[in-house]
């Protein structure tokens, strides 16, 4: 059952769970702590300590002890922290499950600081997923609940970041700069560096690349001083993307490749492969882009990193379309559809990016839906064509699709089982000139029909097409063979021969 994400009248303490989606099944605690890195557990301890919620970190000696915790308040806090860790990994099904379990554990213990911590974690995830309204409600709730300046500032930062790419970016910058001054005043350099990184994103988005670069430099200095390796990887990724935005593709590629060699955590690695794919798309190297997105998919799919998974499917679909492989494109669009559907079933409403992805998917699938083998729509627009004219269009479309997919002409000749010389002859005759990767294709149904012949030889494909087209023409002429022959511009004996073949195949009674 879908639930509305944003219900302002319901944001009393007892009903705040309405603000986050409920995964279909609650994920077991032991599964939630699997694959949690040691450094992230340490960050969780720091997080709880900074928030003044963990007086004695010996209470949480290692990851294995988390499930054995009996103190409900502490357990709720840790579950919330684990939810945050999965947000960091991009696996929001696990995050939402952890947050729900955290709220169930904490609610009833009347500890506003603990609740504020959970809401703050939830707000961070919803902000990452682009759900601004819910982020704002949760952040405001944290500001109301918490008595500590640290937690209030954390919520203010979430509130500001929710609008970082919007029209009010100047206001966001101003608030974030205030936060930087606060963290500076309490000597929390690491949080200060985190905000500097987000400020860099905003300036980059506004094409103020020098300012963005300076902010990343400042963040990097802090990360080096504190020896935060994973944070350094994040900054390097951001630098690569900054190069990409500036159209410095070579520098972007070099930065991303260097980062891959430094073996970042899986989430970061997948993001870097995606970014490398974007660089390749920009340079129109679609096959190289496909290779990059496939590498990202090899990480995001098994780890259920839904935050990045949709982008992998969508960008792969686009790249396959670009190289003319609409069949694989269809399969990938179907994956996009299934992913968005899974989100909706979980209760996560469509935001602008997911809606755009869904719109694109539906449009594509609608245009490329497979028709029945003898559907007349395949030959729409060819009703008045002779057989020779229709054959030219068919062969031109077929060769265009092949040229887009096959690397060399010799390989294509082998695939079509013709000589390279004959292939050259076809290209010249069909107007697919040398160095051309094929013409434009207008009739989506015809394209869909022709795709069915991509694994046929040239001779087989043409024969099948002629059979189908003559059958189509016969239907249009009331199965009058003489009229059909006249219409198609072929002789009566020729049509007799063709219909003889149809009868032997059982097409005609």
């Amino acid at each position, binding site marked *: 059952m879908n639930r509305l994400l944003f219900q302002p009248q319901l944001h009393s303490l007892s009903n705040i769970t309405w603000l986050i989606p409920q995964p279909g099944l609650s994920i077991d605690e032991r599964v939630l702590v699997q694959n949690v890195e040691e450094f992230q557990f340490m960050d969780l301890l720091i997080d709880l300590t900074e928030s003044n919620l963990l007086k004695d970190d010996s209470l949480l000696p290692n990851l294995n002890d988390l499930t054995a915790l009996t103190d409900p308040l502490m357990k709720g806090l840790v579950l919330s922290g684990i939810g945050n860790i999965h*947000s*960091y990994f991009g696996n929001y099904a696990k995050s939402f499950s952890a947050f729900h379990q955290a709220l169930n554990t904490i609610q009833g213990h009347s500890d506003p600081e603990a609740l504020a911590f959970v809401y703050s974690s939830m707000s*961070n995830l919803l902000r*990452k997923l*682009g759900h601004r309204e819910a982020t704002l409600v949760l952040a405001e709730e944290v500001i109301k609940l918490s008595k500590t300046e640290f937690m209030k500032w954390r919520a203010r930062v979430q509130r500001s970041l929710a609008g970082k*790419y919007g029209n009010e970016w100047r206001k966001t910058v101003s608030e974030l700069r205030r936060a930087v001054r606060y963290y500076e005043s309490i000597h929390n350099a690491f949080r200060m560096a*985190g905000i500097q*990184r987000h400020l860099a*994103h905003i300036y*980059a*988005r506004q094409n103020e690349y020098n300012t963005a670069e300076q902010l990343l430099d400042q963040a990097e200095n802090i990360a080096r001083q504190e020896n935060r390796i994973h944070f350094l990887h*994040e900054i390097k*990724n*951001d630098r*690569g*993307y900054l190069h*990409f935005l500036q159209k410095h593709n070579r520098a972007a590629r070099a930065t991303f490749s260097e980062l891959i060699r430094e073996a970042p955590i899986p989430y*970061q690695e997948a993001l870097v492969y*995606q*970014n490398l794919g974007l660089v390749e798309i920009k340079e129109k190297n679609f096959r190289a882009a496909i290779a990059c997105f496939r590498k990202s998919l090899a990480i995001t799919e098994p780890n259920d990193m839904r*935050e*990045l998974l949709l*982008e992998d499917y*969508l960008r792969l679909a*686009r790249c396959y*379309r*670009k190289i003319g492989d609409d069949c694989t494109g269809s399969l990938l669009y179907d994956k996009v559809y299934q992913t968005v559907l899974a989100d909706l079933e979980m209760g996560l409403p469509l935001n*602008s*990016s997911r809606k*755009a*992805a869904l*719109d*694109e998917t539906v*449009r594509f699938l609608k*245009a490329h839906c497979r028709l029945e083998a003898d559907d007349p729509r395949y030959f729409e627009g060819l009703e*008045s064509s002779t*057989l*020779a*004219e229709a*054959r*030219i269009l068919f*062969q031109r479309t077929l060769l265009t699709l092949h040229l887009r997919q096959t690397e060399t002409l010799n390989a294509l000749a082998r695939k079509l089982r013709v000589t390279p010389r*004959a292939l050259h*002859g*076809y290209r010249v*005759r*069909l107007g697919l000139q040398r160095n051309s990767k094929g013409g434009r294709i207008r009739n*989506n149904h015809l394209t869909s029909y022709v795709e069915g012949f991509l694994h046929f030889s*040239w*001779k*087989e494909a*043409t024969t099948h097409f*002629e059979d189908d087209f003559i059958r189509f023409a016969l239907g249009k002429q009331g199965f009058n063979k003489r009229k059909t022959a006249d219409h198609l511009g*072929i002789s009566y*004996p*020729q049509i*007799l*021969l*063709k219909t*003889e073949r149809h009868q032997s195949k059982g097409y005609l009674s």
Partner: protein
Amino acid sequence: MKNINSLIIPLLFLLAACSSPDGGLLSSDPGLRSSAPVSVASAKTTYQLAGQIQSAPAGTQIVHADSSVQTAVVGDDVYINESVKNTVGSAYKVDLNGNLIIESDPTIAVTITSPVSVDYYYHQDWVAVNQDMTVYTSQIRVGVNGSCTLTTKATLVLRSGFNENE
């Protein structure tokens, strides 16, 4: 009649055996058998003014109906069935009067109130009336009725490549 058929059918199979190696009917395949030009019926081309180039940064081209290409300058007329494209990937919109206007932001969301064909993100397709869509476009082709309205707004379509972790 029966006798005639008994002669025709074997003759047809004999002809089939001699048909072209590419599967086409006798001498009907333009690729191998015939050197004579094959005429293809083409729709009558009508020239109807669709719009005018309002801005033309480097790389802007008009592609005529016969596929010939012309470098576009401000003030150039664009006719129906012609395309305007920019090799550097700028985005365009077509205003109420059919004018082509180049957008600075390559990611624009548009609401289309008249039929228009848009090359959105590497793929050409027709867009239905009143359908919201997102365009990363390098090319817009003006439809049969020419004028259309695209309202644009800047939007971040997919997540950025920045690491958005806290």
